[in-house]
C-alpha cells in the first residue's frame, strides 16, 4: 500500500513576515505511524493545524484519501475522520468517562415520543472501545479528572476511533507523562496499526517515537529537512542518534551540506 491517506504538496503558510511552512511535501500512508519531529518552533503544530483547517494555507494543496481537500474548520476535518488529540485538552474533566465518550453523539432510546440517554449501551460501548486500545477501566462511571495523563489520552483516542477516525494526530502525547505512562501511551499507539488507523505522532523526543513509528519526518523553521524510514539501511541506517543529530543541526546545516 503505497497510496497516501494524507498528502500535502508544497504547503506554505505565512504569518506576517514569518514563513511558518515552506513548500512542505508531507504524507502519511495507510496503516502507518509517522513521527513528526523537530525542535520547538519548527512548524510541527502549524503543519497539522493547517491541514486540519485551523489556519488557511497560503499555498500548496492537501490530498486526503486521494481527493483534494481544503478543510475550513477542525470540525470539518474531524467529520472526515481526522482527529487531533491534545494532551488533556479533549475531555471534560467534570464528567465521567462514558459521558465524555458520547458528548455530542449520545446514544438515545425512544420512550414514546421522548428520547432518553441509553446509559447502559453507552457504558458498555465505552468499556469495549477502551478495551480495543488496551486500556482496561473498571467502570465507565469514573470521573475523567482522576485519571492519569495517559489514561485521559487513551479515552480521547478510544473515542476518536469509535467515531470512525482514520487518521489520528497526537500532539506531544508523551511530553508531560511519567516513564510508566509514556510506555502505556506508546503501547497503544502500536496497537492502533492493527485497527487500520494511521497516526501522526508529533514530538521533539525521538526516543519516545522511535520504537513505534515507521517513518520520521523532520521539520526545521518550516522546512522539511529530512525523511527517514526505519527500514532504511543505507548511509548509516536509521538510528535515533542520526535523527537527533538532524534535529539539532537543523536547516542551516542541511543547506550547507548540500552546497558543499
Amino acid at each position, binding site marked *: 500500500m503505497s497510496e497516501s491517506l494524507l498528502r500535502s504538496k508544497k504547503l506554505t503558510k505565512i504569518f506576517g513576515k514569518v514563513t511558518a511552512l515552506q513548500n512542505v511535501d508531507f504524507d502519511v500512508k495507510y496503516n502507518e505511524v509517522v513521527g513528526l519531529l523537530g525542535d520547538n518552533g519548527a512548524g510541527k503544530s502549524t503543519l497539522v493545524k493547517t491541514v486540519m483547517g485551523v489556519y488557511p494555507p497560503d499555498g500548496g494543496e492537501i490530498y486526503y484519501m486521494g481527493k483534494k481537500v481544503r478543510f475550513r474548520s*477542525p*470540525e470539518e476535518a474531524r467529520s472526515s475522520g481526522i482527529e487531533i488529540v491534545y494532551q488533556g*485538552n*479533549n*475531555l*471534560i*474533566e*467534570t*464528567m*465521567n468517562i462514558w*459521558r465524555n465518550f*458520547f*458528548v*455530542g*453523539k*449520545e446514544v*438515545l432510546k425512544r420512550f414514546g415520543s421522548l*428520547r*432518553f*440517554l441509553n*446509559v447502559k449501551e453507552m457504558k458498555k460501548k465505552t468499556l469495549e472501545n477502551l478495551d480495543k486500545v488496551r486500556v482496561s477501566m*473498571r*467502570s465507565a*462511571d*469514573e*470521573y475523567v*479528572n*482522576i485519571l492519569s495523563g495517559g489514561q485521559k489520552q487513551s479515552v480521547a483516542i478510544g473515542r476518536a476511533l469509535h467515531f470512525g477516525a482514520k487518521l489520528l494526530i497526537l500532539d506531544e502525547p508523551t511530553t508531560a507523562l511519567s516513564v*510508566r505512562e509514556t510506555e502505556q501511551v506508546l503501547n497503544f499507539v502500536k496497537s492502533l496499526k492493527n485497527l487500520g488507523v494511521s497516526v501522526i505522532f508529533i514530538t521533539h523526543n525521538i526516543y519516545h517515537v522511535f520504537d513505534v513509528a515507521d517513518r520520521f519526518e523532520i521539520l526545521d523553521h518550516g522546512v522539511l529537512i529530512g525523511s527517514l524510514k526505519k527500514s532504511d539501511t543505507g548511509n548509516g541506517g536509521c538510528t535515533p542518534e542520526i535523527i537527533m543529530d538532524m534535529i539539532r543541526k537543523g536547516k542551516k546545516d542541511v543547506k550547507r551540506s548540500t552546497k558543499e
Partner: protein
Amino acid sequence: MLKDLQKNSGYLRKTSFLLNNRNVTISVILFIAFFILFSNVARGFFSPSMLTVILLTGAELGTLTIGITLLLISGEIDLSVASVFVFSDYVVLILSSFGIPLPICFIFALVYGAFAGYLNGFLTMKFSIPSFVVTLGTLIFWRSAVAGLTNGEPTYYTGGDSVLLRILGGQIGIFPNQFLWLLVFVVIFSVILNHSQFGNHILATGGNKEVARALGVDTYKIKRLCFMISSTLASFAGISYLARSSYLDPIVATGMEFEAIAATVIGGTLLSGGSGTIVGATICAFLLKEIQIGAGTYGIKAEYYKVAVGILLVISAIINNLITRKIFKA
C-alpha cells in the same frame, strides 16, 4: 503497579459515590436534625400548619433553585429570578385588570418569563459580559419597574375566582399545591439533567465550554435555554404566589435570589459549573425555610435567619471545596 491500581480504583469509586451523593445525604440529615431540634425547643413548630408553611415557602424557593441549579451547572448565574417573580405577578395583575381571562394572563406571564431569560442569555453571550453583571442589571431593572408601576404600593387581584387559582395556589390535605408542582418539576428536570441529551450538553457546557463546542455542542443554545428555563420557572413561582395571596407587594421576594443561590450551593452544585444536583438544591430550599420558620417560632429575631444562611453557605462552600479538591486533584 497492580497494588497501586487497586488502591487507586477503590479510592476512585469511593470518591465518585461521594461526589454524586454527598450533598443530598448531608442536606437530608441537616433537615431532619433541625426538624427534631425545633420540634423540641420551639413550641408550636411541630404541627401540620407549620409543616404546610414550610412546604409552601420551601416550594416557592425550590422552584427558583431548579433553574439556578441548571444555570450554575451550565456555567452561568441568574440573579434576576426574584425580580422576574414579582414582575410576572405584575403582568398578571395588569392584564387581568383589563378583563383578560386569567389563563391568558398566566400564559402571558410565562411568556414574559421566557423572554426575560432570553434577554439575560442574549446580553450575556452577545456582548460577552459575565451573567453576574447582566442579571444584576435585570434584577434592578425588573424590580424597580414593578416598584415604579405600582407606586410601591400593594396591588390587589380584583378578578374573579378561577379553577386555575386553586390548581396553582390551593391545598390538598396538608400539602400545598405548590409543593406538588415542585415535585413534578424536580422529577422532570432531574430526568432532563441526567438522562437526556440536553442535560448531557448542559454538563458538558459547564464542564468545559471549548471542548464541548469542539465536540459539536451548541453551547450558546444550551445556555440560552438554561436562562429561559430559569426565568420561566421564576415566573411560574411568581404566579402561583399570586394565586395563593391574591395581591402583590412590590417588595415581596426581595433577596430571594440569594436564598436560591445559597440553597443551590449548599445542595452541592459547583459554582464553577459542570456538576450539581437538583434534588440536593431543592432539599436545601426546604432546609433554609425550615430554619427560618423554626427560628421564628422559637422567637429568634428574623434577621438572624440570614445569619444562619450565611454561615451554612460558607461552611458548605468550604466542605464542597475540600471534597472537590480531593476528587479533582485541583
